[in-house]
């Protein structure tokens, strides 16, 4: 895989991650101070799925670096509507931009596009596959709040289709992190992710109840249980409440527990948690800008 492409978290070594996070910390300290850093750089935004945080943070990041964006806009108003292939769309947009960001509903879409384009490419989410830039901002947030070694982390929610979870779990194998996975039976980690974790020598500890492990956690990473994944609404209703947290749930947690969520949330975290020291999800979203500044800066540098 090329150095100027970030397609999965599997590409990232501990050293790679620490380099990007250190660079992100510099941008984070004074984001407005780097406006001439990547002057004239144009970032192509190819979002084939709705996105608020990821897309806006990429836009902000490149603008903070002095660059700008070209955006293919909603799929409904693009050539995709006329039947153009993703491969063709990407090859056209690379003619307009110095780097591409791709979000697509199909797994493996970023890998395929990476075979067709020469400019730097970032996977901003491919179906239930990977979301490595989210992982970098997750790691940045974890490092700021709990440190990345000697860490016990619980990852809870839709682990089967949650691409942020797949990428994060893999990246954490670079660190001394004890990972616990909490989900209903039907939304457990997919076989391919468990295979990768085993290959990396990580222990996969799976639970159906948060209570079993909550007191030992330094970080609790919550994801949305997606109602649309359940063929039976009753089945969803039965388990939905089991995987939400509120102040009562958190009574069993360590005082310095960090609660994270890639957002958007629906009802997994009660609003009453927002004003506590546990809540880190809005800070996490904010961290998308410095982390993506660091990543774009590095990839554009690789491409020089």
């Amino acid at each position, binding site marked *: 895989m090329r150095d100027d492409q970030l397609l999965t978290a599997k590409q990232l070594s501990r050293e790679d991650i620490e380099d990007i996070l250190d660079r992100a910390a510099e941008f984070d300290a004074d984001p407005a101070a780097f406006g001439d850093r990547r002057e004239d750089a144009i970032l192509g935004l190819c979002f084939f799925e709705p996105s608020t945080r990821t897309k806006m943070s990429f836009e902000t990041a490149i603008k903070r670096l002095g660059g700008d964006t070209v955006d293919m806009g909603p799929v409904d108003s693009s050539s995709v509507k006329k039947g153009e*292939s*993703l*491969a063709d769309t990407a090859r056209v947009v690379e003619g307009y931009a110095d780097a591409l960001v791709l979000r*697509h*509903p*199909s*797994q*493996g*879409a970023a*890998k*395929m596009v990476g*075979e067709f384009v020469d400019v730097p490419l970032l996977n901003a989410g*491919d*179906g*239930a*596959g990977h979301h490595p830039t989210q992982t970098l901002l997750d790691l940045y947030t974890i490092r700021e709040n709990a440190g990345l070694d000697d860490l016990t982390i619980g990852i809870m929610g839709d682990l089967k289709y949650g691409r942020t979870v797949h990428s994060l779990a893999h990246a954490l194998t670079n660190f001394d992190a004890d990972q616990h996975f909490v989900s209903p039976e039907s939304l457990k980690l997919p*076989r*391919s*992710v468990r*295979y*990768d974790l085993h290959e990396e020598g990580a222990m996969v500890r799976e639970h159906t109840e948060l209570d079993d492990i909550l007191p030992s956690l330094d970080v609790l990473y919550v994801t949305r249980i997606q109602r649309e994944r359940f063929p039976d609404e009753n089945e969803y209703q039965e388990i939905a409440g089991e995987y939400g947290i509120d102040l009562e749930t958190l009574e069993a947690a360590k005082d310095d527990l960090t609660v994270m969520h890639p957002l958007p949330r629906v009802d997994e975290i009660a609003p009453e948690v927002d004003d506590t020291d546990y809540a880190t999800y809005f800070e996490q979203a904010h961290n998308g800008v410095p982390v993506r500044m660091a990543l774009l800066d590095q990839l554009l540098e690789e491409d020089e």
Partner: protein
Amino acid sequence: MSDHQLRVSKIPRGTVIDHIRAGQALNVLAILGIDGESGETVSVGMNIPSDRMGHKDIVKVEDRELSQDEVDVLSLIAPEATINIIREYEVAEKQYLERPKRVVGILSCPNHNCITNENEPVETKFDVLDDGVRCEYCGTIVRDDLAAHIAAE
């Protein structure tokens, strides 16, 4: 040649795939894209007694030699098979199968959400694992019944 092998007669030229695990002959035909419509003369023996294997299947395809891609996929479902290239009724070459590191363009990905199942100009690629194959695009691991995932022509 033993009586057992003579159950299916010698062919003048083509390929004999021998020592196929019993019950896999029809999957071998599927891999070779043989459905009876292309006009090839094909002989199939199933559950033939074998000293080495107990029972085995055998497939003889006249006037055809196999491509490396076909051999690679055969090695996944019939690793014990031997491939004999026949010329003038004699075995001109004998090939033992080796598992490839990857197979390209032959298997389809069972994950309907994989980009290889979209209308894109991309061939499927699977890494070969110790106990299955893995899609290089979406990561899906296939362990059972690989023959069911042979891409349609």
